[in-house]
């Protein structure tokens, strides 16, 4: 009875005229959908619903790299990037943060070990809520997605039933034409969403599909891609019809958004360049390379392992680390998205010390050489003693704090019952408890790993010449295994030690340790920029896979195409917020103290990001010399070839500084040494082949995303509107919240005012 009265009041409230109001949002999250492609196909439902009956942002962009995990996190949190790749590794421990691997998550969830996907766990620890978290449990109906909170097992069960519970003829047809469990899942999620639309309590619904992204990576065939769009269009039509029959037909906003675009062409195959092979080779430094999946996994039986998050591809040309690939991977690659590679190189000083120890423990060095080598070793160790000791102290301090939190959390976890009541389960109390237990488990693992890392460094710093007696130590006790160590400086990257010199260790004519001849060194930014291929078989594709490299320096972000064509993107904080400027430079050289030297250049064609020669730059050339806010950069550059690169690179490479000390520390440990961007229609995928298309770069096709919205009469969403003002993904969440009269003042992104004409 009381429920009936409540429902009556609710319906009465809905019937009353009011100011523009959105009571419910339905968000369709379409991975990788590019706006340009939508214009090439006939999509009647979307044209009717969003084109004529709603609003479209013609210039909506991903803010950071055009990568799924990072991009969805921006859209879903409205906060600066906490997640900066599809996979990240802790530099000190190589603990993987694998944001895309569903299988381990499902198995752990089934075993009641985990509740949320890795990305959600990271955001939870950072205290950053998702958009869906703004709604109570019974007010929200999230679909299955990368940032997955919880698992709806009944949906999976129903999808399985949907796959098999069919007439025999239909089953036979499906078996012969091609059975797809993914299609069944998508249909089931849509079905669940349509059911949830009937529930008056539910105010937030979303639906995620990666079908287009998957197809577009594999083929540029416009018919195949068009088929995905037609299916999407039909689904939008069905959902819109269901909204019309729902309790909030006039106050529901339907939103279609994509996380990034797709650089795809019907006439060009995207070409892959295998950086794993290159780093494995002598020319690339003969590294053991760590990736999140097996290279060419489709050609390996072990490539079927769905639990894998860290794979080492050893080099058979390594000089001082031969057959030690599992213990000492020296390069970490995140290649996902594929138009960019995030590269983590083991700390250069680790390499130097490791080569020293390798030579010294072989006991083949002649007496004078050995003495000089020992001196040189301790000279090198001394040069890093202070910063590394400071690092150890910092780790100790953070772990002491962590111990307190672990103790507190353990007390809480110990109070959890073995079994939960039905009411508790219905309220999600059991899942909250499991989240805490999982957090405790992760903190304990982190504590163990960081403690081990610090202990190894301590032993290394405590070495004395007397310790070099035979058999006194193993190298693994002094150089941390499976660790990249501290970040490299620009000097390190330009003078990176890949092994001992070709003749081993020798002395100079004066009997001193010969630092020049005793190590093989590489200049990685320059070497990567010089990569070329002999098979230049597509007229539109360059023979050079690498467009430019980016390294964070103390003077700003260093972008480099070659020695003469480089740039610095500098950032400062002012009352107007973050301001950036772009300086054309040449010949940047890292210094041993971490600083950099370079020569200024006047503006000309050929510099990274090609602003000078871009006809779509919306400002005079002189504008580029000055400091400008992000909004100004977005307005002026969004239609250029590299669209949001200035903002995106700073978002990606500069730390926001947000969060508690431990969380911030861990975020800094996930940094990589350099970013490499591929030239147009090149990619760095090694897991398989992506000839259809790719994303990950700042090329406009990759960053340009979809944001369309339509609403019932009461929502005030404009009709037939094309919004030209450029916005990026930071604006998405605050705009949704404002539409729903739930604005949050501390969100950094500007609200899209054009969508709020009645407010």
């Amino acid at each position: 009875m009381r429920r009936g009265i409540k429902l009556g009041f609710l319906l009465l409230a809905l019937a009353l005229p009011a100011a523009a109001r959105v009571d419910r949002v339905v968000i369709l999250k379409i991975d990788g959908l590019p706006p340009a492609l939508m214009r090439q196909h006939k999509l009647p439902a979307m044209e009717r619903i969003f084109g004529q009956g709603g609003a479209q942002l013609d210039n909506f962009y991903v803010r950071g790299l055009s990568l799924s995990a990072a991009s969805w996190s921006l859209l879903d949190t409205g906060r600066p990037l906490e997640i900066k790749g599809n996979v990240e590794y802790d530099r000190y421990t190589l603990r993987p943060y694998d944001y895309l691997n569903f299988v381990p998550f499902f198995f752990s969830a089934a075993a009641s070990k985990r509740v949320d996907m890795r990305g959600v766990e990271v955001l939870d620890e950072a205290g950053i809520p998702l958009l869906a978290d703004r709604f109570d449990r019974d007010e929200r109906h999230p679909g299955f997605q990368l940032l997955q909170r919880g698992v709806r097992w009944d949906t999976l069960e129903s999808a399985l039933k949907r796959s098999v519970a069919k007439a025999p003829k239909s089953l036979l047809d499906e078996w012969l034409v091609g059975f797809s469990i993914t299609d069944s899942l998508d249909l089931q999620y849509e079905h669940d969403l349509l059911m949830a639309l009937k529930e008056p309590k539910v105010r937030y619904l979303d639906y995620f599909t990666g079908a287009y992204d998957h197809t577009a990576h594999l083929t540029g065939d416009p018919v195949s891609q068009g088929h995905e769009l037609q299916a999407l269009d039909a689904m939008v039509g069905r959902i819109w019809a269901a909204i019309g029959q729902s309790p909030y037909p006039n106050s529901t906003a339907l939103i279609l958004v994509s996380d990034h675009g797709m650089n795809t062409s019907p006439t060009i195959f995207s070409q892959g360049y295998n950086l794993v092979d290159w780093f494995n080779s002598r020319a690339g430094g003969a590294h053991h390379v760590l990736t999140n999946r097996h290279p060419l996994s489709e050609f390996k039986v072990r490539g079927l392992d769905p639990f894998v998050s860290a794979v080492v591809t050893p080099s058979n040309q390594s000089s001082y680390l031969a057959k030690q690939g599992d213990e000492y991977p020296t390069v970490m690659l995140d290649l996902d998205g594929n138009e960019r590679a995030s590269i983590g190189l083991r700390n250069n000083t680790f390499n130097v010390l490791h080569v020293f120890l390798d030579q010294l423990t072989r006991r083949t060095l002649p007496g004078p050489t050995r003495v000089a080598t020992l001196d040189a070793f301790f000279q090198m160790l001394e040069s890093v003693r202070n910063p590394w000791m400071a690092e150890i102290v910092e780790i100790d301090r953070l772990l002491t704090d962590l111990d307190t939190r672990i103790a507190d959390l353990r007390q809480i976890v110990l109070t959890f019952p073995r079994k939960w009541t039905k009411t508790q389960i219905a309220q999600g109390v059991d899942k909250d408890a499991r989240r805490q237990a999982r957090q405790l488990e992760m903190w304990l693992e982190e504590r163990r790993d960081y403690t081990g890392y610090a202990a190894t460094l301590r032993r290394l710093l405590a070495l004395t010449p007397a310790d070099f007696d035979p058999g006194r130590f193993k190298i693994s006790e002094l150089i941390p295994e499976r660790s990249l160590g501290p970040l490299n400086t620009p000097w390190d990257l330009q003078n990176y030690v890949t092994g001992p010199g070709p003749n081993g260790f020798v002395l100079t004519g004066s009997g001193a340790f010969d630092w020049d001849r005793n190590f093989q060194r590489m200049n990685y930014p320059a070497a990567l920029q010089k990569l070329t291929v002999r098979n230049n078989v597509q007229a539109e594709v360059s023979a050079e896979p690498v467009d430019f490299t980016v390294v964070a320096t103390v003077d700003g972000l260093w972008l480099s195409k070659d020695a003469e064509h480089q740039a610095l993107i500098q950032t400062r904080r002012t009352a107007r917020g973050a301001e950036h400027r772009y300086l054309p430079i040449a010949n940047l050289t890292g210094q041993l103290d971490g600083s950099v030297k370079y020569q200024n250049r006047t503006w000309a064609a050929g510099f990274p990001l090609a602003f000078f020669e871009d006809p779509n730059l919306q400002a005079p050339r002189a504008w580029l010399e000055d400091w400008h806010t992000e909004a100004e950069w977005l307005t002026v550059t969004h239609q250029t070839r590299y669209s949001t690169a200035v903002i995106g690179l700073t978002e990606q490479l500069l730390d926001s500084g947000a969060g508690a000390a431990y969380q911030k520390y861990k975020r800094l440990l996930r940094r990589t040494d350099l970013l490499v961007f591929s030239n147009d229609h090149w990619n760095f995928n090694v897991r398989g082949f992506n000839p259809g298309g790719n994303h990950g770069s700042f090329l406009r096709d990759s960053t340009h995303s979809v944001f369309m919205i339509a609403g019932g009469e009461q929502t005030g969403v404009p009709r037939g509107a094309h919004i030209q003002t450029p916005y990026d993904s930071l604006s998405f969440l605050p705009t949704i919240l404002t539409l729903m009269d739930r604005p949050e003042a501390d969100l950094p992104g500007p609200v899209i005012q054009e969508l709020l004409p009645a407010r």
Partner: protein
Amino acid sequence: MHWLLLAVPALALAATPEFTITRTPVSGGAEILTVFAPVPESNQPVPLLSVLRDTLGDSDPANDRLRDIWMLTTARPSLLQHAAAGVPFFYWRPNLGKNADKAPRSVLDLGDPASNTWSFLAQQLTQVLAVDSNGALIRASTRRYRSNLADQRRVQLAEGLAVVSHLENREEILGVLNESELLQIQARLTLGGQMMGGLVSSEKLPEAYLSQRSRTHETRGHNWELLRQRAEANGLYFEALGLGDSPTHALLWVAREDALGPARDFDGKFLGIANPFADSRVMDWKGISVTRSYDAQGREVAAGTPGASERELIPLALYGLDYPKVPLLVVDFRATHAPKHREMLARAMADAVTGILGYSKWGNWPYMAGSFVFNFTRTRWGGATNGQQRLKAYADGRRWLALDTSLAPDLRVDLLKRLEVMGVNPLDESIFQATDVARRQFAALLAYAADPDGLPARLQRDRAAELSTYEHGPFARAGFKFAQVATLGIFHHHESDKGLGLTATLDQERRAKRGVPARPDPIYASGN
């Protein structure tokens, strides 16, 4: 509505032959649509494929129905060919005579696509229940014969698909064969190669077409990329070839200067060829070679371009890009017979195990499990274990080479000769006779169409059978057939045309099935 997708323009990557299509009326209300294409060795276009369209004698496409497809480049095998096809371990294609002047046999009946499936299943059942137990000789020869017959049909289907896939987006073709008909033909040709493919319902054809199309494009792109990367890693030169909107084949070359240089590491994985560096067969190469010029960026440029460097390239291998997962080695220029020997070995294994020893997967679970694990592992590692797909790849190669006028003539002939070696089926035609066979088969088809007891009579029988499908389910129809056979033809079920006449009844039924309104004033009232 999925066929609308075909309207999306696709840019051509390579020259597509100028296909033409002609209509030949057939008495009784039908027409034969024949696809012609120019071939390098003839000034006159060659008929490649014909389709029978039952129009019921009117010009309204709403009641049209496609029926037979004939691949004209293949004739009915002669008796000697049939005999040779039944010889176990005989994997050659001797010239044993042709029936090129006899009316061709249709490769697929689009009006009754399930018939081939039922026929195959009945044959299989008979083989297992009645034939296999009669000793190794009979078992091996009948299995080999049926396998060769099935392979020959698959080759025809693949060649037909290769032709039809080039007809999309061509205005002059679409004026005769509309998009939904093209989609139906392509989907059925694809499904026809699968054991149960004929059972797929017509409503699923758009999905089957799109699925096949996506798969084909994905496979080509994947293999193009795999081969390019392997060529790059091994210091070879990669050249993609093919007709239409995506390349179907690729050649790998080695520069003579590289081959003459010192031996170097070579990773032949996925390539299936021997190390060409410091290989005496390459160093002493007397066969075909080309000289090409490249600019500083490695882009091929015209000879004599300033700053360009010239390189003499020696062909190493031709690959088919349509084979799932890996490029399929079709021609190895240094070991022309090597792919054939691999093919013969695979067949010999099958003949020995299934034919001679009598092991069948379904009757021997350990064999099935072992075979599955072995094939799964080999496939996983990139082995070309799918015999049907290999067959299709060779057929695609033959069809491409027959049609591609852009290839250098000497290279094309060289490739054809090497591909000709691949023939392992006594029922197949020599590719060098295909043009002559096609012309004679087309003439025979026209004669068959003009003969009142030929195609027109068959058309009437097919229409009667079609009417039966509207009135009775598959089991009832099977019962009629069984009764007819059991009574030695004394019983013959005749479907009632409800007094309207066969044509008018079919007009109504076809319209009803497609949801097209019936004619207000039936023009077929008099029947025929």
